[in-house]
């Protein structure tokens, strides 16, 4: 029979779906971002301040290097956890 849990699942899924579709229709048109002040500053000054021709790499490693440090920590933690799950303790 149809249990109460199935009705609750269908109801909550349809409410979340309505929110997502409503948000996708009402957002600004594709191709016109709202605020571009910081990115225009980075595009005009990236070549003389960092010395690299690639604006995305200079953002990842120079202007926002602290986020890359956090990401390297996440990679290290994931590898350590996976090796630890499959370790057999020598008897």
């Amino acid at each position, binding site marked *: 029979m149809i249990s109460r849990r199935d009705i609750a699942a269908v109801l909550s899924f349809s409410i979340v779906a309505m929110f997502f579709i409503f948000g996708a229709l009402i957002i600004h048109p594709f191709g016109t971002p709202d605020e571009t002040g910081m990115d225009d500053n980075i595009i005009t000054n990236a*070549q*003389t*301040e*960092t*010395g*690299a*021709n*690639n604006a*995305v*790499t*200079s953002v*990842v*490693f*120079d202007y926002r*290097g*602290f986020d*890359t*440090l956090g990401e*390297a920590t996440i*990679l*290290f933690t*994931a*590898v350590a956890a*996976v*090796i630890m799950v*499959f370790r057999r303790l020598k008897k």
Partner: protein
Amino acid sequence: MSGMSKIVKTISGIAFPFITIYGLYVIAHGHLTPGGGFQGGAIVASGCAMVLVSYGSIWIMDRVKEKNLSILESLGAICFILLAILGLGFGTVFFNNFLVGTNSLFGVVPAAGSGLADINTGGVIPLMNFAVGLKVIAGLFGIVLVMAYASRTKEEKK
């Protein structure tokens, strides 16, 4: 898992150096073309996974132990943090780019708006690309090797 036939082993052994050279090219030119440490590391790790699937995980685990891969990954992480702390020592802030504008290793600054790609530019960015690339290669290959070795069947465990 066990290895595959002789033809598959030969062809994957021929294709592996080309994949590695391409991946190292993408890592080294990260400040001039699209790419960088993470993307090139993923390319080389895919080539290593292809060799692992064709030769069998027991054969590879006998020759490459996972603690060597763990040492290589830690080496890459230590080099990355060392470059960040050297920015604190030579300059003013953490992650300072202390090699731009000087006459040392990677210190040429290109003229504003020019498109000539010189590999001698970039400051501390190419060194960071090498450190992160080494970390990603060792980490992803270590994950795939441990998971393939742990799921071998009962006939191969003897």
